[in-house]
Structures are given as structure tokens and as C-alpha cells.
């Protein structure tokens, strides 16, 4: 995963609350392999009308949106389903950071696992940023080390869990980290199945083998 230290690029204002994962990527696109590129599905039904034409005035249809790497939204961003496809859609579109007053729990950890920074700001600061950006993508500077967003004279602090910050700064992957603890895991598992023998799965009913 590519580490993030600072981001300097355009930010898209998305002045909406509760942008849930069903909006980020509608379920019907989730049968697609990742190789098709999920960016085309991002916020699909807000971006397009019933006939599939781009909705005029929607921020992702702005000519400069394709160069943006940050999204600014209102509270409860990414609530809902655990579908990581919502994060794939953002990342494949080119986003590296979402700024909002609160995030869906699973969405936020999915983000970090894909190198997308979920930056939490106060509701007030989110409103200030949205007002500063207005209706078009605008430049922001984001410093993950200092946990700061700056635009012109404005400087805003954001929060992120320390472990997530470390992961993003270093571009670390969990599986590598965990495998260093293989011995501790084995030791735990042995003691555990002695203490709670019934936790191991035994099928007491006739085993049915399903063909799918």
C-alpha cells in the first residue's frame, strides 16, 4: 500500500449527510471483478439520472473532479453495509482522503486497509470547508503527520486513531504484521482449545455435503 504523508490536490465538496455505502456503490455493481475499475460506479445513482445521463451540477460531473483526491462531506459518511467495494469505488476514482464529521465504523477501517485516509473533523469545521470550497473542486493541503488540513489562511485539525495513522503513514499491511506473531497465536490457540474445548466445531448432526 502506498504510504500517505501529505496530500496536495483538489478536494470535492459533497455537502450531504448519511452518504451510505449503498449510495457509494449500488449493490447491482458488486458482481463485477475489481479489474473493471470500480471508479465508474462511485455514487453512480447520484451522478446519473434514470436514463443514465450525467446529472448536471453534481460535483463528480465537474470537469475538474477527475483530478481530485479528497472528498469533503457531512456526518455519518460511509454508514451501512460492510461492502469494501464502497472504498474500492472511491480509491479507483482517485480519492486518497475523505473528510467528514463522522464515519461508519466498518467503512473507516476498510478505508485504512486500502490506503484511504478517513479524516474526522468537527461539524463546524466541515461546514467551513464546504463553504470555502463552494460548488467546485478546490485545493487543500493535508498533512497526516501533523493531522492538519490547510486552505489559504485556514488551518483545521483532524483526528484519526493513532494505529490507523501509523498504518497509513507507513503503508503497512495487517497480514504481514500479524504473521510476525505466529508463535504467540499458536500458543494462544493451544491454551484456548484446552480451556474451551466445546468452542471447536463438531458436527453432531449428520453431515450434509452441499454441492452449491
Amino acid at each position, binding site marked *: 500500500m502506498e504510504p500517505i504523508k501529505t496530500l496536495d490536490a483538489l478536494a470535492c465538496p459533497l455537502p450531504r*449527510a*448519511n452518504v*451510505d455505502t*449503498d*449510495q457509494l456503490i*449500488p*449493490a*447491482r455493481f*458488486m*458482481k463485477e471483478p*475489481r479489474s473493471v475499475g470500480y471508479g465508474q460506479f462511485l455514487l453512480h*445513482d447520484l451522478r446519473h439520472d*434514470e436514463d443514465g445521463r450525467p446529472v448536471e451540477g453534481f460535483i463528480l460531473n465537474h470537469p475538474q473532479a477527475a483530478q481530485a483526491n479528497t472528498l469533503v462531506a*457531512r*456526518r*455519518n459518511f460511509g*454508514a*451501512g*453495509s*460492510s*461492502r*469494501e*467495494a464502497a472504498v474500492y469505488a472511491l480509491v479507483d476514482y482517485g480519492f486518497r482522503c475523505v473528510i467528514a464529521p*463522522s464515519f*461508519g*465504523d*466498518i*467503512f473507516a*477501517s*476498510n478505508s485504512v*486497509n486500502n490506503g484511504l485516509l478517513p479524516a474526522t473533523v468537527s*461539524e463546524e469545521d466541515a*461546514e467551513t470547508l464546504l463553504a470555502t470550497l463552494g460548488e467546485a473542486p478546490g485545493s487543500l493541503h493535508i498533512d497526516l503527520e501533523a493531522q492538519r488540513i490547510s486552505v489559504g489562511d485556514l488551518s483545521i485539525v483532524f483526528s484519526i*486513531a*493513532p*494505529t490507523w495513522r*501509523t498504518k497509513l503513514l507507513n503503508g503497512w499491511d*495487517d*497480514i504481514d*504484521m*500479524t504473521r510476525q*506473531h505466529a508463535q*504467540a*497465536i499458536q500458543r*494462544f*490457540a493451544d491454551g*484456548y482449545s484446552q480451556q*474451551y474445548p*466445546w*468452542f*471447536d*466445531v*463438531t*458436527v*453432531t*448432526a449428520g453431515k*450434509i455435503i*452441499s*454441492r*452449491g
Partner: protein
Amino acid sequence: MTKPKTLFDKVWDAHEILCSESGQSLVWIDRHFVHEGSFHAFNKLRERELSVARADLTFGIADHYVPTLTRHLEDIGDAKVRGMIEQLAANTREHGITLFGLDDPRQGIVHVLGPEQGLTQPGLLMVCGDSHTSTHGAFGCIAFGIGASEVAHVLATQTLWQTRPKKMRLTVDGELAPGISAKDIALTWIARLGADGARGYAIEYAGSAIRGLSMEARLTLCNLSIEGGARCGMIAPDEITFEYLRERPFAPRGEQWDQALAYWQTLQSDPDARFDREETLAAAEIAPTVTWGVSPEEALPIDQCVPDPSRIEDAARARQARDSLDYMGLAPGQALTDVAIDRVFIGSCTNARLEDLRAAAEILRGRRSKVPGIVSPGSTQVKRQAEAEGLDVVFRQAGLEWRESGCSMCVGMNGDLVPPGERCASTTNRNFKGRQGPGARTHLMSPAMVAAAAVAGHLADVRELSGAA
């Protein structure tokens, strides 16, 4: 003397392998469910040439994409949908994972199947790449949804990195009025605290009204924890839990049952355990509740009117309400009972267990639905039991379709969709824009309330039909 502990901490501590300097815990996973959507995770394993660490603790379930009109793969017209089910079968076969597939008599929605088969037990730590995994917490286990990267991590290591959440106790004391269900408790607290109101917390549901709930109702309540933003929801196990589990196919037997039971009986918050937050609800104040907007927090008692944004002081809230009313095609201040519906759906992991179907059937018995609709039982076992009780006949005679089990119209992945612009009274868990299909309008409510809406042709108060008012 040892420090008093919450139920959550007891279970968490039993699973903590180590805690990193930065405060993240590596926890052991007892049960891991995968479904059709888990293909990203299997692909990740393949890319990195990793194998599944504990196939014996992993279970595959076909639910999200399964058709509700057939149990035969070859009958599925959409090749991509069929491919999703085949891919799950191939991935589980390759790694030696038990599969509850389309043709399996035990097939069902993962969160209905787990408890039903006795795979869900007190004190476990369970995960699945589905946010409503919170359901299983009804047994006093820690259960939560994870994303595909985490699914891959669990497959490869049987462990997960997690930050210990804060603890919140939600106490509901008193007696629920007739006609009030677990769904109403959930929608009431979410409306009060907000769809992100419990973010960062593990909820323990407590109080006399909770103790009085059946196992199935507890599952409904814990299922909806995620809709209030909680990491998970749990209820301390008691006689109701143990009775439910006894003799289930995967439940411990004989001596192991006795051992397990002795342990399970210790799984409750100690009397002086400290919670980071306490919230209370009076059971008597809970009314039949329906959603009017596009977030589960936009819910109101059925005898109320939808909000008028011009009367909401907070500008952000007013804007949100206006946007929701616009999508839902409702007029400001309109009475909820004046909202006409186009169809109904009874199904999903939230409300498609036997008790749910009974509650809906009780209202529909001898009546006709004014609108079309689908009933999809939560599992194939539930379907069998319902048929044995003749509930299928009640639904059919009311004019509704009796289908096979699956996620169906909860998420529409299998093609069961609400057409654009249509309004559906639904027992599901999300009223998000487009959740049941592009442009679909969803009102969430309990199974009995959906049945009442079907009979009336508009949102309706079940108490007027059941004589409970």
C-alpha cells in the same frame, strides 16, 4: 478482589492474544462466515499465495445472490448472479470450507442460519463480511461485520486487529404494550440517538423488557445495532438462550454441554461494572414505529406526521429532512397513515424468522393484501416450519407470493427489486436511497406493521387491526 467487568470485556479478554503498544488488540476468531460477496477476499489470498488457516472454523453460506423462485442453479437466468453462487462453491471447495449452498436443506440467510444451526453460542467471537453480523450478539457473544481486507486477514490467520470499543448499556425497563416488537424498540432508540449515535460503542441491551424478549426478538434487536452505528450489540445469555441452543446441530452435547453451560452462566456484566455510557428507554413509551426517510434514524410512531422542514430550527437537519422527503415523495407534515404503498416485503435477517412470519400471518389471516408483495423466509428451515403450520397458505390466500429463502429484496442483489419510484413497506433494515432498487422508496417496520399496511394499502397502525389499541 478482581475488578468488576462488563459482559463485553469478559468475552473480549478471553480472545485477546496480545495488545500492541499503540493499543490495538490481536483477537482470536471462533467463527467466520463467508458468502458470495467474499470473493474479493479469496482473490486476495490467491494473489498472496496464502491458505486458509482454520477451514474448520469457517463456513460458507449462499444467501446474498440466491434466487427466491428456484433452488436450481441452472434456472438462474442472469449469468453473473449464477457466477457469484458458483464462485462461492468453488472457493469453499478449494479451501475445504463447509458450505451451506443453494441446494442445502439448511440454507438460509447467514444471520438466521448461524443461530438456527447452533453455530452461534455465548462467549464466542464471530465475524462475517456483512454488517448485520451484530445479530449474533443476542446470544452474549461478540459479533461484528468486517470488510474484505479483514475477511482475507481472518482467512489467513484466524485473528483480527481491533481496537477495544467503548461500552454503552441501553436499558429498557417496563412492559411493552401489545403489538410492540423488537423492531419498534430498535427504531425508537435509533431515532432518538441518531444513525451514528452509538458509533464507537459496543452496546449491551439490558433491563426487564429485554429479558422478556424471546430469542428471535433479541436477534432482531441486536441485528439493528449497526443501524445506530454501534460496533456490536449483545444481550447476556440466560435460560431463554440456553433453551434455544439445546440440541441444535452444532451445539455442544453431553459433558461438553455441561461444561459450556457452567461457563455461559458466568457471562453477564458484574453488578458494579462500569459502562462508558448509559442510556435508558421506558418500554411503555414505545409505539409501533415506521421510517419516513432515507436513514433508519428518520423514524416516527405511526400516529404522527412526517416532519415539516420549515419548522426544523437546525439548518443542517432541515436540509436533510427536505432531501429525504423529496426522495421519498412525501409532503411536509403529511400524516404517516395517509402514505399509500405499492408493495410489501416480508423477509431479511432482521425479520424473517418463524415468530416474524407468525406475527404477520396473524394479521393477514382471512384478509386480503391490497398490494402485491413477497414473503421470503429467513432460512429453508424456517420455510419448512412455516409450511408445517400452514402460514404459507395464509400468505398466499392474502395474495402475497411465498418464496424461497435468501436476502432477496433486502438488497436486491438476486434481482428481486422494488421498481423505481414505488413505495414498499418492508421488514428489512435499511431504507437507504436505492437500497431495494434504483429509485425505490422503503419504509421500515415490524412484520405485523407490514401486514397491516398490506391490508390497508397505506401505512397503518397494527393496533387497530389486532384490537390491541
